[in-house]
């Protein structure tokens, strides 16, 4: 028994943080299970001083690797907070601006952007998200994107597509990066999805 207890100092440091995080988790834990449910999430947001629909919450979900919208599992919450060294609410709150900066980096943004789509797939075997959800997600993930107002309007005007699939989502991400605001460098003979061909056509008609 004694043999197992080595490096007592570091181990107890880990355990101490663990306990703190664990305690934080239990503060919001759903009584029925090993997760923080929607109600707990709402309280958490309140305590953090953010609106549940705020972008920061989505980023936090991404950082924690949350699999299910509106829920944080014990593993997700605890290991995520540990990685951020957010052992209590104050520290967690303080970490949020840092997360926003992190997500602004191109490679992290890619991961965040893809995460946002998958996060909306609430049903098992669901592969698409409806247009309204897509618009919301785009607003949260890339609020300053030049093409976004136009794309939002276009999606609402058109009736052909009622939902967005992963390919279209990813392609729009690429579109936002590569295509100029006036769409002058768009080439429809390339493999852009048809919805974007339609969008560019719409843009040119609505100049």
């Amino acid at each position: 028994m004694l043999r197992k207890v080595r490096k007592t100092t570091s181990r107890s440091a880990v355990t101490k943080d663990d306990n703190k995080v664990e305690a934080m988790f239990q503060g919001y834990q759903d009584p029925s299970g090993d997760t923080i449910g929607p109600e707990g999430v709402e309280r958490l947001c309140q305590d953090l001083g953010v609106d549940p629909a705020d972008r920061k919450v989505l980023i936090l979900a991404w950082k924690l690797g949350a699999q299910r919208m509106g829920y944080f599992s014990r593993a997700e919450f605890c290991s995520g907070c540990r990685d951020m060294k957010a052992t209590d609410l104050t520290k967690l709150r303080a970490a949020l601006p840092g997360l926003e900066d992190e997500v602004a980096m191109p490679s992290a943004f890619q991961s965040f952007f893809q995460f946002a789509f998958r996060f909306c797939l609430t049903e098992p075997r669901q592969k698409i998200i409806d247009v309204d959800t897509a618009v919301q997600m785009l607003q949260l993930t890339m609020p300053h994107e030049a093409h976004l107002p136009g794309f939002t309007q276009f999606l609402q005007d058109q009736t052909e597509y009622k939902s967005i699939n992963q390919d279209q989502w990813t392609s729009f991400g690429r579109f936002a990066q590569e295509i100029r605001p006036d769409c002058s460098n768009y080439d429809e003979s390339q493999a852009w999805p048809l919805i974007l061909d339609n969008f560019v056509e719409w843009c040119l008609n609505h100049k």
Partner: protein
Amino acid sequence: MADKRPMELEAGWSLMRRGIEKLKKLLENEPEESFTAQEYMTLYTTIYNMCTQKPPHDYSKELYERYKQSFSTYIAERVLPSLKGGSGEFLLKELCKRWTNHKIMVRWLSRFFNYLDRYYIQRQNLSNLNDVGLLGFRDDVYNEIKKRTKDAILVIIDQEREGEQVDRALLKNVLEVYISLGMGNLDTYVRDFEEHLLIGSTAFYKRKAAQWIEEDSCPDYMIKAEDSLRLEEERVGNYLHINTKPKLLKVVEHEVLSTFEMQLLEKEQSGCAVLLQDDKKEHLARMYRLYNRIKTGLDPVSHIFRKHVESEGMKIVNQAAEDATAKKEKDAGKPSKEGGAHEQQFVRQVIELHDKYLLYVTECFANSSLFHKALKEAFEHFCNKSVAGATTAELMASFCDNLLKKGGTEKLSDEAIEDTLEKVVKLLAYISDRDLFAEFYRKKLARRLLFDKSSSDDHERAILARLKQQCGAQFTSKMEGMVTDLQLARDKQQQFEEWRTNQNKSLKIDLIVTVLTTGFWPSYKATDLALPQEMVDGVEQFKEFYEASVKHRKLTWIYSLGNCHLKGNFDAKPIELVITTSQAALLLLFNDGEQLTYNEVKERLNAGDDDVLRLLHSLSCAKHKVLLKEPPGKTIAKTDSFRLNVKFTDRMRRVKIPLPPVDERKKVVEDVDKDRRYAIDAAVVRTMKSRKVLKHQQLVLEVVQQLQRMFHPDFRLIKKRIEDLISREYLERDKEDPNTFKYMA
């Protein structure tokens, strides 16, 4: 005894000089006797001796010099003076004379001095005597007068061009001088004469062409052009060197044909388009001949040809469209009739147009592939336009149907029918929506086969064979299946009857069932029509028989395709009605003598409004009113009621009551669109499976290539299908390059 002393130079030379003087006199036509053999021998021997003597009496060098000198002297004395100041024809004549003389002189003198040729010139590597003689003429005479001579020749040539008679032999002889003095190559001729000829000819034809293009019509201009070419060619044959021919003709072609090509072709009253309009085949053939000589010269001509054929085709299309709308307005309110006369006419006119202009291509345009291509493009352009909502594909299918069915509007001999069918199939090559044609054709074929409306089995088979040849086996496999099905169905019916006999099963009605293989025939809606009991019994019996005879097959009954002979015991006399099964089922609802409302009929028949309306209309508002409608009228309202018309009669014992078919166009287009989606999917998957990784553009090209025999797929549609296949995980985008796809096994 022979004189052993060597001959001195001057001594020998004085002998030679005497001979030379004699020769000169002969050349000048002065009285002198010709050389005797003796004299010749002496001269020859003198040279021989002087050359073979031992040095220092070996006078080869001196003799060679003096040989050369002899010419120069003579030329200076006699030849040049005679040519001096001369010009024009006189100069040429004199030159010829002097040249002939010179040649003689060279011949004789070189014979005298022949021994030099044997050893001296070879040892010293000098020009031989003949060449020396010629060079003498060249240097002393020719170079002096070549310019004047050339000018004189060119003047005469231009005179001949203007139509005057000239001395061709003279020109030929003069030019021979130029050629000969080239000493083995044509450089002298080319440099001193030909180049100038070409410049002069260019100027001449430039002027002429500019004049002609203003004054003459296109045909006249072309005739002049053709004549010019012919005359220049003759000129070469008459007195120019053969090498000049291509260059000279090129000058004419350039100045007369190339420079003014567009102006000529586009001449308002007489240009290419007008010639086509007025069927001036001879002139067009000439145009082809002329512009065939020039590289890309025929491109504008073929372009105008294409535009012309296109516009003629569009005229037909527009005319047919007008006729169709006019007819539609006239027929408004009546149920749609198919195979209108104007549609037949449209196809017929297209065939005639094709025949006409194909003849042009073979006769006027020498079967050139450039013009075949122009014809093809023109036809592809207008053959894919719609006429009043119907595509050409549909119209052609209707046309074929009309030819092949009994009672079609065209009464033609077997040969004429075969011929026309062949031409229609050929026209298919221009239609991009071939799958649409196939589907319409199949639908109409089904009706012909099932209602026994086909006028000739041979014709049906013949056209299928042609379609197979033109469009491939896949195109006709289903249709062939249909024809076979009927054969098999007849056999099955026989087995059914035998089975009934064996099983001792009887029916109140005679029942003939035709079993069709689903894949071959167009898709039909299966309805749940309420049949009278007699028919239901029949259906049940057949089901029993069929399930006993074949396993693993499912029968779906399509009553809409059936027909029926129903005997009606009317008051006046019994009449046999030839009607469809649906019509029969409806009529039998009235067998008890009741009056039924529209809704009652609909409910009891278990059919939709569309069908009920059509059926009732055919029985109560058409020619033979077997049902009486309350209130009477030409159209059916849902508030009407119906009663059997017991007073119905006709002078015939058997009466046919046709049921106008539903307009199938919309369904066909829908079916074809659906098939196209599958076809594109299949092509994409097939391509990706074999290539594994492919760029978007290449994939699209491959797919278009694979499908083009049947239809021209829209790029957007292909993109959409690709996206669909991505979401179904057949392919994925490459992570690095989103323009590339990867096959997902």
